[in-house]
């Protein structure tokens, strides 16, 4: 692996991987900067650059409302999933009690569950309860799908915390709360942050629940809003607007993922490999 030929070969492989990941994203970005006149010229890069597509979507109330819904619903769902999931993950990592594997088994089942199987009954149940087309109506299924991931990832992180430090801190005269706040919480925080990011991505990425359980922009999230962009009213041709909107909902997540790359990798793989 240290020879020059090997190095060159791996560099070529790396370049391929980079192209693989970047080209489709660069294409959407390029599309979003094209002017209406050049958008259908078939060239990869724009011949004339414009920011009009971005100005257009931020002047579009439906899209802005969709973004607000996405952020609000995503944050609340993540917070609830983390709060509820932390308790369960702590119990699973630290306590011995019957039914532990049942909780893990059920959450695994839900993680693999086809969302469409929940959509039809939830559509009917939420209409009956008046939750259809409201924030709680989306928060409920989002929490349910983020929760299994939270429990899995967090319980793996919690198992790796050296809990003896808590005892040591208490022997040194710390109160239980001090031991938690000064010793355990800082150790647990990275795992919680990583899990929160993964849970938020799950909620942010959803499309099926959002188009099925909403009927107006009262709760419709951004990915669903984009799919309702049409060429008729504000926009002549929705291509540029859709590309710009796609970039707007993608860039924050990609930045997050890149910033927390190392932790996200450990979070994604933690539950999956230790068979």
């Amino acid at each position, binding site marked *: *692996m240290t020879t020059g030929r090997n*190095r060159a070969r*791996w560099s070529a*492989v*790396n370049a391929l*991987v*980079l192209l*693989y*990941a*970047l080209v*489709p*994203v660069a*294409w959407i970005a390029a599309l979003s900067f094209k002017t209406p006149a050049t958008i259908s010229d*078939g060239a990869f890069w724009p011949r004339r650059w414009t920011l009009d597509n971005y100005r257009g979507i931020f002047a579009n109330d439906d899209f802005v409302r969709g973004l607000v819904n996405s952020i609000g619903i995503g944050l609340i769902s993540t917070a609830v999933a983390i709060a509820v999931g932390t*308790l*369960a993950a702590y*119990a699973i990592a*630290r*306590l*011995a*009690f*019957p*039914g*532990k594997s049942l*909780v*893990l088994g059920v959450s*695994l089942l839900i993680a*693999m*569950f*086809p*969302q*469409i*199987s*929940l*959509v*039809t*009954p939830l559509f009917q*149940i939420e209409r009956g309860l008046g939750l259809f087309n409201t924030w709680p109506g989306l928060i409920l299924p989002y929490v349910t799908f983020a929760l*299994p991931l939270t*429990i899995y990832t967090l319980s793996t992180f919690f*198992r790796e915390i050296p809990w003896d430090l808590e005892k040591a801190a208490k022997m040194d005269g710390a109160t*239980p*709360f001090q031991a*938690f706040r000064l010793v355990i919480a800082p150790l647990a925080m990275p795992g919680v942050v990583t899990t929160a990011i993964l849970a938020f*991505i799950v909620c942010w990425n959803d*499309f*099926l629940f959002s*188009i099925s359980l909403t009927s107006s922009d009262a709760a419709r999230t951004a*990915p669903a809003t984009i*799919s309702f962009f049409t060429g008729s009213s504000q926009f002549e041709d929705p*291509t540029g607007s*859709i590309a710009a909107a*796609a970039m707007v909902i*993608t860039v924050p*997540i*990609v930045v997050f993922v890149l910033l927390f790359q190392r932790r996200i*990798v450990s979070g994604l793989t933690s539950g999956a*490999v*230790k*068979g």
Partner: protein
Amino acid sequence: MTARAGTAARTPSEGRRAERRLGWWLCAPAALVMVLVAGWPVLYSLLLSLQRNDLRFPDRRAWVGLDNYATVLTSPFWWQAFGLTLLVTAVSVVLELVLGMAVAVAMYRTVVGRGLVRTVVLIPYGIVTVAAAYGWKYAWTPGTGWLAGMLPAGEAPLTEHWPAVGIIILAEVWKTTPFMALLLMAGLALVPEDTLKAAAMDGATAWQRFTMVTLPLMKPAILAALLFRTLDAFRVFDNIYVLTNGAQQTSSVSVIAYHNLIGGLNLGVGSTMSVLIFLTVALVAFVFVKGFGTAAPGRDPEGRR
């Protein structure tokens, strides 16, 4: 935590009982959410699937036994969608496994630019599926797209069955290969370097080392990744909705069930499809776990604490 520390000092049996109770209490909120928002709807869809329940004709509601199942299971549209879903699932998971393994080995073995590759490869994972799907859609739209521009003039791949299926698979594979690669890379880390060196000393070629040492040792990680991705691919919806919306007979089971609910407002038939999809997924998971001995990810048999 404080409760446990307080009780553990007393007699062991009492401490254990307190620990057990605390465990239950801590899991109760999570269990409650999962039962109410997942368990109850599943039971409810089972009930709905036994009814004639069409929101356009509310007064014609009645219990009809297994009639809906007969309707769905004799419908050519259902079987068309079912077959397509199986095809897309099988082809994309196989491609992802091969590509993902290549990417995993590249990320694991490479020395130069390792951090960059490991970071950039996460971009497809982070991108919103719908956003990426629009990117693919426009890339293949004649006139607009750079990929369509490479085809002979007059070709519109998204308006023909097989090309459209190919693009759906492409979109799926592109988005999820990085996830597969990460799972497989974690599996690669489980293969002891010494074993590989020993095999090399015994004269095994790089390919032999990979197929005869690395792959068998990685089997649990591969099976877990396959299970994850198979069940995930089976629910394919976003890409198809954006790329073709089910035109040219490219509906997956999720797409056809969605159209039955939102377009058709037929709760009985929609629920029947939901139940059938759920049963299929359960069957696939069962085959993986019992047939191949896939360990459920995150299981902790020795109850380490």
